[in-house]
């Protein structure tokens, strides 16, 4: 009996389990550090299991609706409510399921890594409480079907991430980064709340499906869309608004940075959800498509050109995160720009979106791996300044191998997964407009150039005298990096499996607005 109860209430448990683990963490942590580590990792494994089962159900049976507080989970439109879903709902369709898989997989690797890399630090009860809270917020943000609920989860993830960025004070610089991140996120949140107010004032509804059904392209809706696009573009770090990304990523602990990448991809998912499902064909998709493409191209070019002269290893990787976000924006922007006419969409629109969304998955994996390797180097040497590193390859062999896998994947070198998604983006964007594809390729070359620089200055060269006592990092950190590296290699060698089973349903779930409305409003 309990198995049906669990499977029928999976979306609620998906957010409830990490929240419960987060609340109990301070109490459990007082018993013993070992107890806390097993408690936190156990909660993460349980959340991962729930997310994988939920994703499997979504991919096999279609969108899952979960209404909080109703008698049965899928009673989205109560009988006496006159056709309006009044309760808060989780609508987990193929795209949300994909983002959940990404968030949970990276979360598993990152938590395993952070359990051993932050062992000697102080104040760990609250650290893991906020960490689990952030994971719960990201999972909630990705699976919710209610606009205001998305705003609440967006704020929780901003607050939790700001707390985590500033966790190790380090002469106040980390707190400065946390403050900048929090200030930018609060302003973005206020913009988003204004947009919710405008939409609620017009259509007297907060559920995404009802709003999508009622939305016409009135001037007020345009203002609401602009506010939402600006807010979410800030949160996902596209160029003109990316200034917080290098500060926040370079000052946060390595494990938190890898999770921050997933959090900003969740707001990227929010941007796509709003432009595809909430507005869909109602918005003038050409202008908004081109806006997202311009944001993407700017992110690619400025991100990589700013990365090359960098002297700090995590700051360099942060700029690469910005430029890789540009690829995703470009891919899905092209898909949005041709959303209207079915012919173009079939010829290259779907492929561009597949490339963009597959790139979200690949980027989360190899960028997480790269940040963990950077964390491993800093864990051993203490400084993140590239000028004071050299010849680490002699002693940190595994970290070097993982770093090579990560940097080859990010630069898009054939056998790895970076190439598979960039290949799709190049081919389809070339059909859309050749200049963009050429820019994308040049940026890939510059990415490779900057990672060769990092590889040379960190690992190659003679073993320096000041680093002679450096040894390999403890096993759990290597296990976490190995876990992500294996996933990077697998998704690189068998891209067709991932595309066919995970990405194509996600793309069709995103573009098929009528399907989304049907499942939610069709209701029980």
């Amino acid at each position, binding site marked *: 009996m309990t198995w049906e109860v669990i499977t029928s*209430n999976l979306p*609620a448990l998906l957010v*409830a389990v990490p*929240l419960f683990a987060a*609340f*109990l963490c301070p109490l459990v942590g007082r018993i013993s550090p070992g107890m806390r580590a097993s408690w936190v990792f156990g909660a993460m494994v349980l959340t991962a299991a729930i997310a994988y089962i939920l994703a499997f159900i979504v991919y096999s049976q279609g969108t899952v609706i979960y209404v909080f*507080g109703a*008698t049965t989970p899928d009673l989205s439109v109560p009988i006496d409510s006159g056709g309006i879903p009044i309760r808060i709902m989780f609508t987990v369709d193929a795209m949300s399921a994909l983002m959940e898989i990404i968030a949970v997989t990276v979360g598993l690797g990152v938590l395993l890594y952070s359990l051993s890399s932050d062992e000697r630090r102080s104040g760990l009860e609250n650290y893991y409480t906020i960490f689990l809270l952030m994971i719960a917020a990201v999972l909630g943000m990705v699976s919710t079907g209610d606009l205001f609920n998305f705003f609440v989860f967006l704020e929780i993830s901003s607050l939790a991430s700001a707390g985590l960025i500033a966790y190790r004070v380090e002469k106040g610089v980390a707190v400065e980064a946390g403050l900048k991140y929090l200030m930018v996120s609060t302003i973005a949140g206020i913009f988003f709340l204004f947009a919710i107010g405008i939409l609620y004032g017009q259509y007297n509804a907060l559920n995404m499906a009802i709003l999508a059904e009622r939305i016409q392209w009135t001037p007020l809706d345009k203002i609401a869309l602009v506010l939402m696009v600006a807010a979410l573009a800030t949160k996902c770090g596209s160029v003109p608004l990316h200034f917080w990304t290098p500060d926040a990523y370079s000052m946060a602990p390595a494990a938190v940075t890898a999770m921050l990448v997933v959090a900003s991809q969740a707001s990227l998912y929010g941007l796509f959800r709003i432009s595809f499902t909430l507005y869909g064909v109602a918005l003038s998709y050409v202008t908004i498509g081109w806006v997202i493409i311009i944001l993407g191209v700017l992110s690619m070019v400025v991100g990589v050109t700013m990365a090359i002269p960098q002297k700090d290893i995590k700051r360099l990787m942060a700029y690469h995160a910005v430029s890789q976000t540009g690829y995703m924006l470009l891919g899905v922007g092209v898909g949005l720009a041709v959303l209207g006419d079915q012919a173009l969409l079939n010829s290259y629109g779907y492929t561009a979106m597949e490339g963009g969304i597959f790139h979200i998955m690949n980027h989360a994996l190899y960028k997480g791996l790269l940040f963990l390797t950077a964390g491993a180097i800093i864990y051993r040497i203490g400084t993140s300044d590239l000028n004071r590193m050299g010849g680490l390859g002699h002693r940190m062999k595994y970290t070097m191998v993982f770093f090579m896998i990560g940097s080859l994947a990010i630069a898009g070198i054939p056998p790895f997964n970076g190439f598979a998604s960039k290949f799709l983006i190049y081919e389809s964007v070339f059909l859309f407009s050749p200049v963009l594809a050429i820019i994308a390729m040049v940026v890939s070359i510059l990415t490779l150039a900057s990672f060769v620089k990092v590889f040379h200055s960190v690992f190659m060269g003679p073993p320096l005298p000041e680093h002679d006592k450096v040894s390999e990092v403890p096993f759990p950190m290597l296990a976490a990096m190995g876990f992500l590296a294996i996933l990077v290699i697998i998704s690189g060698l068998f891209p067709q499996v991932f595309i066919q089973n995970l990405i194509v349903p996600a793309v069709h779930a995103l573009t098929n607005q009528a399907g989304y409305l049907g499942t939610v409003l069709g209701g029980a």
Partner: protein
Amino acid sequence: MRMSKIVRFCADMLYPAVVIFGLYVIMHGHLTPGGGFQGGAVVATAAALVIVAYSYEEIQGMLSKFLFQVQESGGLLMFGGVALIALGLGTTYFFNFLANSGLLFGMSVPFGPNPGDLNTGGVLPLMNIAVGVEVWGGLAIVILYMLSGITKEGV
């Protein structure tokens, strides 16, 4: 930083009054525009009152951070636990299984203007109590941590 005797005496007198008023606001959340968060904030001001009146060392004895942390976690667990019980009964998360069921807080609301019966509202009063306890602990901890920031420089 220790206030004069008069202030400390008034603080002692006011402390129970503020706490009772805060609990009143928490308990009547489903009847009046009060509720968990507002009531919890009112009660946390009682903690602030004591902190202002007494010196840092004395407060360490009176208000212990660990107790507030337990209170905070307990409140949150109660909130989630009550929602989880609905799962056990086969309905969805956060289902109001106590409403109109005659059990605790289960009376049905009489129609027409009336002062409102405390024993109605089903799960809502339980949720309000949980949130009130949690906010009380949470805000008290925030004040204590901010206070510890000041005394380090011996202001």
